[in-house]
């Protein structure tokens, strides 16, 4: 049993449930908890729910120190790019402390931010900087695409003893889908097949899952069966599920909102090249943003970002490549 829930609401429910469950969870960020009417403040009080100045280094650095000493902080950063102001804390502090101490400390925290805001936010607020946070040993990177995953993975992120960057795609915020009732957890590091298929594997995350599912629907009408795999966690990456899908379909299209060489797709393509080459009947194809910044004006913005049509065309091209090879 479950109920329909908006993506954004599912995240809020997860945070609320975990704060109820564990008094060591604290939640803070800019422009939140400004009045006593704030729902989190009403439930949990101003000690555990706090407003901060615009000080990302202090916000995230304090979370690192708090996590090392027994709290489980969630930092609301709003936009993933704001982490760049203080990226040292994300890349070179939070994930290093346990290792450098020889396992004496742990750093259980969540850096929560939205990303990929393709709604006229232009070059500095619409990015997909996921690739830069993959492959940082000790750092988990969570990118849900459905309300159920949004809830279940936020709950797992809060309970995880490692630092977790939790990125939610802005364009999914209002999407409704079913969320199972109760203490619903989705394990981190496990990919999910969002649509089963036999002709081609499409790997995508977040908003690109939605676009890929729409493309799969269009392809189905033409008799092409696409399997859509959502890694859900980009670090650690569930390479095995992706390779198993490629083993079944023999073809791979990777869809990513970032420019080619800063995409998660590029990393995944490399893993498949090493671990799944023998299953491939055609070269892999990446559908990514163009090598531009994200422009402001709508026609230019949609031009540079992956579209359902480009995904459909990429799928057809890998199918054609196979035919040519035969």
């Amino acid at each position: 049993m479950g109920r329909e829930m908006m993506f954004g609401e599912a995240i809020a429910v997860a945070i609320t449930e975990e704060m109820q469950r564990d008094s060591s969870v604290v939640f803070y960020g800019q422009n939140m908890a400004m009045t006593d009417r704030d729902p989190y403040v009403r439930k949990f009080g101003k000690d555990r729910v706090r407003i901060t100045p615009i000080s990302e280094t202090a916000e995230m650095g304090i979370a690192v120190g708090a996590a090392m000493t027994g709290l489980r902080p969630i930092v609301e950063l709003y936009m993933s790019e704001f982490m760049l102001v203080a990226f040292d804390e994300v890349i070179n502090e939070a994930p290093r402390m346990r290792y450098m101490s020889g396992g004496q400390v742990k750093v259980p925290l969540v850096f929560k931010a939205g990303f990929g805001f393709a709604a006229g936010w232009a070059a500095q607020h619409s990015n997909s900087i996921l690739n830069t946070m993959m492959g940082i040993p000790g750092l988990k990177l969570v990118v849900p695409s459905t309300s159920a995953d949004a809830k279940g993975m936020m709950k797992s992120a809060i309970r995880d003893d490692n630092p977790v960057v939790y990125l939610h795609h802005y364009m999914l915020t209002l999407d409704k889908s079913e969320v199972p009732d109760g203490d619903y957890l989705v394990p981190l590091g496990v990919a999910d097949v969002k649509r089963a298929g036999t002709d081609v594997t499409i790997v995508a995350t977040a908003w690109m899952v939605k676009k890929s599912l729409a493309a799969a629907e269009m392809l189905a009408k033409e008799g092409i069966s696409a399997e859509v795999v959502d890694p859900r966690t980009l670090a650690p990456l569930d390479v095995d599920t992706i390779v198993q899908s490629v083993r079944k379909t023999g073809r791979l299209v990777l869809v990513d909102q970032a420019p080619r060489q800063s995409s998660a797709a590029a990393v995944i393509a490399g893993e498949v090249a090493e671990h799944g080459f023998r299953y491939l009947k055609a070269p892999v194809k990446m559908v990514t943003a163009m090598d531009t910044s994200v422009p402001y004006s709508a026609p230019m913005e949609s031009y540079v970002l992956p579209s359902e049509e480009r995904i459909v065309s990429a799928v057809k091209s890998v199918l054609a490549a196979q035919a040519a090879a035969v």
Partner: protein
Amino acid sequence: MQSKEALGKERLIWMFTQMSRIREFEERVKRTFVEHPGVIRGHAHLGDGAEASIVGSLTARQENDLVMPSYRCHGYPIVLGTDARRLMAEIYTRKDGICKGFGGSMHLADPAHHFVGTSGIIGQGIAHAAGAALTAQVKKTGQVVFSFFGDGSSKQGAFHETLNLAAVWKLPVVFVLENNFYQAYTHIRLEDANFMAGDPLSQKAKAYSIPGVTVDGTDPLAVYEAVGQAAERARAGQGPSLIESRFYRFTPHGNAITVPPVPTQFQEHEAIEVYGNKAEFEAARANDPIPKFRKALIARGAISAADADRIEAAARAEMDEVVKFALASPLPAPEDAVNYVWA
């Protein structure tokens, strides 16, 4: 808290003992580069000259208070009760090191002795210390966090952002700015606006409307009093303070940065090596906090010259053993490297 005049003989002797132990430890680290080249890798930063400031500050600690210094971090755990042999073994890259060879000189940690850990990136530990203070505040543990960092850190965004937010949240933290007059190799007169204007660095506290005090960091009792008052204020829920503790470090910023196989060791202090100012260095040397405190304790009748000699000899003997232990400890197994990535 007890006034500095009221500190008992036993406590004063403890202070002198800890100062002597830090000095002897740091002397061993420095000598290792000459006597056992290659045994220490990377970069080591010493606290000789800082002993009065470190020990004076930590004398103001209560049982469970936490300590989070910068990467110039050898002295604090020595005082907090960490096994000095395991500290040296860590600096020597060994398996018995306090961090099992994963951290080294810049990244010592011993949370079991209230030494939470350090960051090797300048200034970031200030924010981490405030985070530990947030834990103390939310969990109502009554702890105060002692944050130590250099004058160079006080130009980092982390310093300014953290002082503001710690003041806003009234976090139980004492910020001890250890002004040794050199930001790595650069003299403070070239990079600090307050210093250039003839103002103390504690002036920076005014920007965040918190108390700011400058003390003579070569006098452990003066440091004890200033830090102790700040700790009392923090424990009473009144928020953070900034203490500028002024002293001189007797070695350069770190061992010379060389590329293997070129051996590295400590050169002359920057005052001489870079700026040709031998007079400045000699004057600081003449104001060495350890003989100064020894003299003060003898004058106060807290200790005899013979007892002071015995304490210093014991510190030397202890640190000789520390070096022997660290040299005898095995290197970690290569495959140990995959441990502790994930909790």
